[in-house]
């Protein structure tokens, strides 16, 4: 019997949905339903024509079984994979009517209603909060325990979507759904998968519920989950792994044979990468979770070629956002401690895709890409070679202006002495982003702070990076931030600038000073906060280090900088400030005759009358601070450097100031560094022919 080929106009059909004649209503309903199933275009067009409220009306007020079944089917189809439809349905108040259908006496009606409910709950717009109103949770639980398999499956999938907050998880657990869900694990494949989905959602980040699960049925519940890792269906395997992971995370005291189980999960999850659909999408993210902070597992994963497989997925090109995020997170974990992993991902040209991901429109993907780079850059070799591509660095700096709310501060290395800087592990070349519900000013502010922290690392001694940094306006940004109202921001900005100047050439230094200006520098040295002062002085230290031309910079604006430094040295309480200040003096003293004299003027002034003790003495005698003792000795050594003309008079002055005596007292300083420096200085003194 061929169906009628006559084309009924869509508008007429929609009209007929409200017809008073039952048969006409039914026919229109069926026609609409058959037109929209599988057909996204038609769904949208019927929604536009206002079909949804009329269909919901039928659902709400009609009691005829065929009408109920057909309208439920239509509702389900409007909702299927279609957020526009879900929205329209929710706005028409469909939820209470669907829930009512679940208690209908006719099983066909119940099944139709259940199916549609499932469709709605697969959308992100699902009315999760509404499910906790009244006795709805009890209703869902009753369905979970009910006879109808299909309905129980739907109840489990609805529950799985309603576990977003800890509060929700608690309510559901207290209502007793855990037991029911475990019961479903022995059922058909679909029921089992829906139950596993729900269990994974309930245990996510929830220690209490995870513990409950462990204790359930004297450990049999967990034993059942472990068996399911080896099941035939890929979805079952994946969900079982997710559940076990959640439990393991919450209960770090571990359970027997945990390592073996985790290894088994590892190989299972890696195999699941190849699956199509949701399973293949979620599997990489699950791997990332599994190996977090576990070096042994990361190694094991590397050995079963996980990195290779992840790179393969990256190269596919067309992958979903969720999968990309998962893949990047997994790579980040596998490269976090393993040099092998880092090497492999670079060999497989992974950095290209990671770089692209830095510019993704999805914040989660950007986060994950940053984590990758952070992990890979832990290898100094990589920082110098594979990660120097300009576009990569540019993308990273674009993130300084990222619109995403919260950036977590990652502490840069706190290199103090020159040589430690070289060997530090430059952990962060990038900014870590975290998504938070509420956007607050403090969080926005934190973003800049960590971005600066990250920038400090990137500019340290790695010439390729520095050049790029200059070229993409990083300096200007930093200088602007150095003028910020907030002291932590200022501190970090100056910190980054200080690193920028480390071992930089004269041209770079001049460029920076042109923009920063000497008067701003003076302000920073005299900043109200000592943490900023410290960085400013360190900045000056790097600024004047090197050639005589560099030293000359400190005399700009009538020596304003030098005077500011001297002022701080006299008044500062924070030891780090003094250390940097003395190094400034030391670096200047390494300059020309003129420069040495300027320093002498400060440390050993030829004043007629009352001569206060040299400030250097104070530092040399400071037993609480070995660094300052070292710095002071360096300064002295530079002042009495043999190759300069006025050295003898300086030696005499320093001797008269009691410096040589003090040094002799320090010949057995407990700190090796200090002792060595002192001995070298004393040798210089004696070489110049003075005696104690």
């Amino acid at each position: 019997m061929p169906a009628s080929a006559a084309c009924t106009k869509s508008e007429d059909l929609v009209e007929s949905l409200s017809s008073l004649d039952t048969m006409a209503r039914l026919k229109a309903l069926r026609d609409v339903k058959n037109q929209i199933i599988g057909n996204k275009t038609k769904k949208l067009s019927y929604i536009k024509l206002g079909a949804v409220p009329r269909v919901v009306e039928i659902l709400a007020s009609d009691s005829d079984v065929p009408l109920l079944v057909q309208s439920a089917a239509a509702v389900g189809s409007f909702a299927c994979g279609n957020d526009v439809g879900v929205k329209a349905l929710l706005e028409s108040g469909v939820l209470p009517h669907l829930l009512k259908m679940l208690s209908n006496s006719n099983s066909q009606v119940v099944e139709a209603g259940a199916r549609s409910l499932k469709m709605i709950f697969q959308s992100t717009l699902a009315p999760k909060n509404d499910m906790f109103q009244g006795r709805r949770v009890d209703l869902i639980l009753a369905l979970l325990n009910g006879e109808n398999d299909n309905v129980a499956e739907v109840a489990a999938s609805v529950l799985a979507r309603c576990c977003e907050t800890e509060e929700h998880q608690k309510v559901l657990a207290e209502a007793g759904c855990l037991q029911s869900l475990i019961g479903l694990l022995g059922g058909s494949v679909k029921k089992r998968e829906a139950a596993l989905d729900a269990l994974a959602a309930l245990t996510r980040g929830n220690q209490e519920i995870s513990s409950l699960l462990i204790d359930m049925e004297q450990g049999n519940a967990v034993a059942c989950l472990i068996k399911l890792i080896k099941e035939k269906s890929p979805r079952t395997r994946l969900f079982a792994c997710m559940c076990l992971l959640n439990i393991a995370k919450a209960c770090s005291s571990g359970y027997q044979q945990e390592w073996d189980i985790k290894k088994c999960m590892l190989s299972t999850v890696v195999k699941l990468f190849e699956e199509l659909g949701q399973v293949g999408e979620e599997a990489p993210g699950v791997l990332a979770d599994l190996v977090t902070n576990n070096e042994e597992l990361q190694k094991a994963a590397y050995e079963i070629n996980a990195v290779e497989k992840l790179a393969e997925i990256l190269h596919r090109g067309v992958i979903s956002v969720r999968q990309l995020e998962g893949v990047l997170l997994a790579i980040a974990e596998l490269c976090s401690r393993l040099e092998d992993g880092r090497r492999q991902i670079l060999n497989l040209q992974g950095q290209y895709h990671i770089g692209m991901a830095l510019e993704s429109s999805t914040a989660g993907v950007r986060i994950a890409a940053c984590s990758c780079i952070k992990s890979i850059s832990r290898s100094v070799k990589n920082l110098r070679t594979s990660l120097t591509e300009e576009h990569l660095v540019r993308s990273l700096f674009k993130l300084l202006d990222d619109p995403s709310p919260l950036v977590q501060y990652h502490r840069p290395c706190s290199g103090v002495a020159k040589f430690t800087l070289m060997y530090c592990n430059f952990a962060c070349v990038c900014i870590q982003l975290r998504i938070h519900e509420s956007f607050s000013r403090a969080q926005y502010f934190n973003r800049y702070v960590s971005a600066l922290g990250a920038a400090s690392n990137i500019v340290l001694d790695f010439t390729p990076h520095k050049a790029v940094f200059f070229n993409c306006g990083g300096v200007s940004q930093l200088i602007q931030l150095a003028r910020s109202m907030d002291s932590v921001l200022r501190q970090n900005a100056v910190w980054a600038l200080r690193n920028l100047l480390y071992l930089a050439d004269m041209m770079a230094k001049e460029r920076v000073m042109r923009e920063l200006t000497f008067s701003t520098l003076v302000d920073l040295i005299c900043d109200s906060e000592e943490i900023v002062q410290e960085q400013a002085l360190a900045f000056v230290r790097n600024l004047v280090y090197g050639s005589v031309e560099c030293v000359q910079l400190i005399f700009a604006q009538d020596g304003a900088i030098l005077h500011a430094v001297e002022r701080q040295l006299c008044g500062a309480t924070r030891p780090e400030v003094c250390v940097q200040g003395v190094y400034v003096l030391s670096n200047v003293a390494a300059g020309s005759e003129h420069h040495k004299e300027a320093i002498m003027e400060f440390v050993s002034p030829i004043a007629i009358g009352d001569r206060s003790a040299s400030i250097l003495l104070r530092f040399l005698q400071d037993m609480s601070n070995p660094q300052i003792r070292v710095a002071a000795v360096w300064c002295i050594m530079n002042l009495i450097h043999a190759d300069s003309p006025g050295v003898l008079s300086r030696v005499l002055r320093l001797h008269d100031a009691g410096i040589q005596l003090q040094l002799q007292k320090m010949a057995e300083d407990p700190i090796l560094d200090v002792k060595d420096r002192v001995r070298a200085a004393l040798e210089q003194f004696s070489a110049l022919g003075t005696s104690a």
Partner: protein
Amino acid sequence: MGKGESSSKKMITKEDWEKKLSDVKLRKEDMNKLVMNFLVTEGYVEAAEKFQVESGTQPEVELGTITDRMAVRKAVQSGNMEDAIEKVNDLDPEILDTNPQLFFHLQQQRLIELIRNGRLEEALEFAQEELAPRGAENHAFLEELERTVALLAFEDTSGCPVAELLDLSQRQKTASELNAAILTSQSHEKDPKLPSLLKMLIWAQNQLDEKASYPHINDLVNATLEEPVA
């Protein structure tokens, strides 16, 4: 290392082989289940019902659902696509909503039937209204769409490069795809177990051939044991 392959292979006579075979124990229930599985999956409702009565074997699914499924299959095999779609939607509205490729193939078959019946204007309109959006929604379908629409361009379809689309075997293909989807939605395996067992037999024989000389089963229908070749 040896004198040669044939002499290093173990030799088993037909007599010995038959004795070994008779030592293998099989349960009648298992065999009945295999038969029932075949009948149910392939959709032989009446045969399944009779078999259930005669052997007491429980079918894996409600035989009623098989009837529904067979009605769908029949509709497709008769070229009645609109009817088939309505029926499968009544059976389970989720199937076509969650299987875009299947849905596309059903629409494609609809177009083919319109062309076959010479209703070319309708076909053109249908292609525009129904198939083009599928191609727009999913670029993977564009190539097949183009092939199908090519039918419209040829007055004499027998010379057309895509003429095979008009074959009745195309209907079979579509019918099988739809049948498999329905089975999956009912949590039923879409393939019967019997063919897999036969494949296993052939594979096992190939493996054993490297190590022994023994009676083969070459004729799967009659399952006669051939004399072993030296």
